[in-house]
Structures are given as structure tokens and as C-alpha cells.
């Protein structure tokens, strides 16, 4: 039934998104990029992609930072165009996607204030996908309760602050705890929202969000080794309450004290078997876990485009585009640092 009525409000948007999807780079294009000798060659290769217009206007010498910022600008313009065309429920769906970026911006500003940084320096560094009008007012951050009551209560992030207001002492670790707690609440609410969408969007988005939840749980468990101030109960509070690892696995991950314990818990889930296998023993590039999750996410993105009449194509396109930008940035960094043997450590989507 959704196929009959979907195109009335969302047919044009889905068409535009599928056009953007066709602009994503293929594996043969990535191979051409890896054969570039310098960043100017890379720019020449990218002139056949969506990034041509942005990269032609780079002032001064081309650097990896310039390339990354121009590719991000292209992504933002495409996103803005889609958002301005969207009506309900697509508009709410896209707003939910942007809340994740808003959380990152809030945390960046609070951290900047803690580190005595100039607001004028930090504000331009915020992600435009997560911009909101009262963001500059966050520089008054002294404790969470005053921040919430004066600034954040009127923003879309207000519902995510459950469990964060008790944190009065803002130091770097507590800010990270706040970030993870906000994101946990956000993921849970987004998950509930997506369950209310019509299929296949609900099924596809549930799969994406469960993967995201599991990835965050594993990263929190791994990255908190050596942080003695973070207790097991506090760690558990940052874990979303859904996903393949929800329940007993999260208890074990919160209590884990080394990588082997985490490995044994995570690999008990069949879809995550092999995520800790490391092909590259070189200390500089041993990130097989992240690569595993990125590859899995890209598989989900590719599969989601086979379904029509679904708002989830927007999310899939955005994730695939972000991965493409990460790949281009990595290739540019390897070329700039003359590390040609590491060039192929990217994840191609198509």
C-alpha cells in the first residue's frame, strides 16, 4: 500500500537521493585515485565526481584539510536541498538524523569552553548538519543544570538530557560521559520513532540503529580501558538498551578488563564473528574492528537501495557519502605522507 501513496509526497525526494547515490564513487574510480602521485592529481581525478565544483575553488595550496572541508561542503549542500524539500514524516526523520550531529556540536562547544578556547574560533568548526540557533549561547557552560535550564531546554536536544543533569563538575571525562549518555538517549528515541514508520523503512532503520548501538557499546568498552575513574555502573548507563548486545552481553562488556574478554562476548553474536581478526599487525593501522563495522554498515546501505518507497534511502545515502569522504581523506593523507603501501585501506561502497 505504501507504494501507491509514497510518491505523492516523497517521490521527487527519493528520485533526487537515487541520483545522488549514482554519483557515489565506484571501486574503479577509487583505484584511479590510489594511482595519483600528488594531491593535484587527486583533484584532477575528482573533477569527474560531485566534488568538482567545490575543489575548483580552493584558495592557496591544496592540502588534505582543504580537500576534506570542500567535500564536506558538497555533502552539506546536497543535504540542505533534500531537507528543504521534505515534508512529514520525512522532515522529522531527517531532523532525527541531524540530532546526532547537534550532540557533537554541543559537546565540542562545552569542551572548547572548558579548554578556554575563543568561541569565534570554535563555532566555525561545528558540523553544519547539526547547527541550531542557540548553539553560540553554550559558551556559558559551568554546569549541566544551568546549561540545560538556560539554553538547551528549548532546543530539540532537551528530551535527550535524561540522566545528564546530575553531573555538576564539568571535566573532560564527564563531558565524554555526557556525550555518550545523550547519544544513548537519542538512539533510543530514534529507534522508537523508526518503529512507528511504515515498512520497509522500519525494518531497514532498525537494522542500522542496532548496528550503531552495538558499535557504540563495543567502542565505549574498548576505549575506556585505563580510565580508572569510570566505574562499571557508569559505563553501563552509557549503553543503549537495544541491539544484539543488549542484556547480558552489555553487563559482561561493562565489566571486561581486557580485549580478550570483549572479544569472547562480541564474537558470540554470529554476525560479528571475525570482527577482531587483524590482517594488519602493523601498529599504525590495526583498526580492523572499525573497518569491520564500516563494511557491515556499507553492506546495509547497498542493500537498502534495493527497496523502493522508503525514507531510509536518505539515511543510507548519507552514511555512504560520509564513508566516501572518509575514504578520499584517507587516500589524500597517504599520498601526502608518501605511505603508498597503506593506500588501499579504504572501504568501497559500490
Amino acid at each position, binding site marked *: 500500500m505504501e507504494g501507491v501513496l509514497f510518491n505523492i509526497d516523497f517521490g521527487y525526494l527519493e528520485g533526487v537521493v537515487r541520483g545522488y547515490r549514482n554519483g557515489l564513487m565506484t571501486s574503479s574510480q577509487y583505484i584511479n585515485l590510489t594511482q595519483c602521485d600528488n594531491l593535484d592529481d587527486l583533484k584532477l581525478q575528482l573533477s569527474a565526481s560531485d566534488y568538482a565544483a567545490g575543489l575548483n575553488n580552493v584558495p592557496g595550496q591544496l592540502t588534505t584539510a582543504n580537500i*576534506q*572541508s570542500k567535500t*564536506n561542503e558538497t*555533502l552539506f549542500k546536497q543535504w540542505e536541498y533534500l531537507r528543504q524539500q521534505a515534508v512529514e514524516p520525512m522532515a522529522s526523520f531527517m531532523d532525527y538524523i541531524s540530532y546526532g*550531529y547537534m550532540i*557533537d556540536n554541543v559537546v*565540542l562547544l562545552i*569542551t*572548547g569552553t*572548558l*579548554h*578556554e*578556547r575563543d568561541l569565534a574560533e*570554535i563555532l566555525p*568548526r561545528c*558540523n553544519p548538519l547539526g547547527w541550531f540557533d542557540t548553539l553560540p549561547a553554550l559558551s556559558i557552560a559551568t554546569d549541566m543544570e544551568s546549561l540545560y535550564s538556560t539554553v538547551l531546554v528549548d532546543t530539540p536536544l532537551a528530551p535527550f538530557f535524561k540522566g545528564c543533569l546530575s553531573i555538576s563538575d564539568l*571535566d*573532560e*571525562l*564527564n*563531558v*565524554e*560521559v555526557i*556525550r555518550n549518555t545523550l547519544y544513548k538517549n537519542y538512539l533510543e528515541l530514534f529507534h522508537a520513532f523508526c518503529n512507528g514508520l511504515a515498512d520497509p523503512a522500519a525494518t531497514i532503520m532498525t537494522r542500522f540503529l542496532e548496528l550503531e548501538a552495538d*558499535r557504540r557499546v563495543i*567502542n*565505549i568498552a*574498548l*576505549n*575506556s580501558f*585505563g*580510565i580508572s575513574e*569510570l566505574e562499571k555502573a557508569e559505563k553501563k548507563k552509557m549503553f543503549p538498551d537495544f541491539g544484539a548486545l543488549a542484556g547480558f552481553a552489555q553487563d559482561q562488556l561493562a565489566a571486561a578488563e581486557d580485549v580478550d574478554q570483549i572479544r569472547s562476548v562480541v564474537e558470540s553474536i554470529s554476525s560479528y564473528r571475525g570482527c577482531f581478526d587483524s590482517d594488519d599487525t602493523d*601498529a*599504525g*593501522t*590495526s*583498526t580492523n574492528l*572499525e*573497518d569491520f563495522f564500516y563494511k557491515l554498515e556499507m553492506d546495509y546501505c547497498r542493500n537498502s537501495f534495493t527497496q523502493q518507497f522508503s525514507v531510509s534511502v536518505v539515511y543510507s545515502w548519507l552514511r555512504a557519502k*560520509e564513508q566516501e*569522504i*572518509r575514504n578520499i*581523506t*584517507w587516500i589524500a*593523507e*597517504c599520498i601526502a*605522507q608518501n*605511505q603508498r603501501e*597503506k593506500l588501499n*585501506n579504504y572501504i568501497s561502497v559500490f
Partner: protein
Amino acid sequence: DIKYLHLLEYIDEVETLMDTLHPQLAQGFLSLSRANFASGLGIGKKFGQDYWDYGERDSHVHVCVATGEFRDLLQEQNDKVDEKAVENAEAETSGLRSRNSKLEPKKIDTVEAQPVKFKNQIRMFNGGMVPLPLRQSQQKFKSCLPIVVKIAQLRQQISDLMDEL
């Protein structure tokens, strides 16, 4: 002639140290790039100067180029904290043994926790909850510091010798 020999030795040592330094720096930068790739910080976000703390922080490393001295004060503080933790653990264990043998338990002088003066710089980024490549990058760059001090010392000695010759 002896001075010329010393000069050649110093130059050779500098070249050897540079050959050691360059791969370490290259690995450090590569690990940093990989940390940015895998960070999940969001597009456009890097572990970089956005997160630097411009507030007052004590220096962690004491260096003297003239003598080639290199002291990692953060490592020394961490070693002291670990030693005290081991002492406390041993004191508690000996108390337990005393109780088991029905002797009077000895009074344990609890060592008061010293205030931590130096904090690991990696805490600037996400409170220290960072991916493994960033920690590896930090290790690589830290391992470069003694080499840099040694190179600076040798260059000073070369400069002094050149003035004499």
C-alpha cells in the same frame, strides 16, 4: 685531527639518529590519520587543535640539551602512584595473613593519595576515551622525544667543534 675525527663521529651519529627518527614520525602521523578515519567523530572532525586545552598546564617533560637529560615527569608520577598502590596492596595482604594466624593485626599506615599534578595529554580528546590508533600515535611521538633531544645535543656539539676548527 682528533677534532675532525670527533666531528665525523658526531655527524655519523646524527645521521643514524635521523634514520631512526623519520620512520617513528611517519608511523605516528599514519596512526593519527587512521585514528581520524576510524574515530566516528563525525565528518570533518579530527583529533586536532579543536580539542587542545589553552588553559594553564604544567609541562610533562624536562629536557636539558646541554647534558642530554630527558625526564618524563608524567611517567615518573605514574610510577610513584603504581608503587604506592602495590605497597597498599601488600600491606592489606599482610594484615589479612595476621588475622588468619590469630595474631593482632598490625596497624596499616595508609598512604594518603598524592594529588595528581600531571594529566595525560590524551585526556584532551574525548576525556581519554580514544581509539587505539590515537594511543599508538601518542606512543610513537613520545618515543621520538629522547631522539630529538639527543640530535639537538649532537648538533650543538658539532656547532661548537666547527667554531673551534
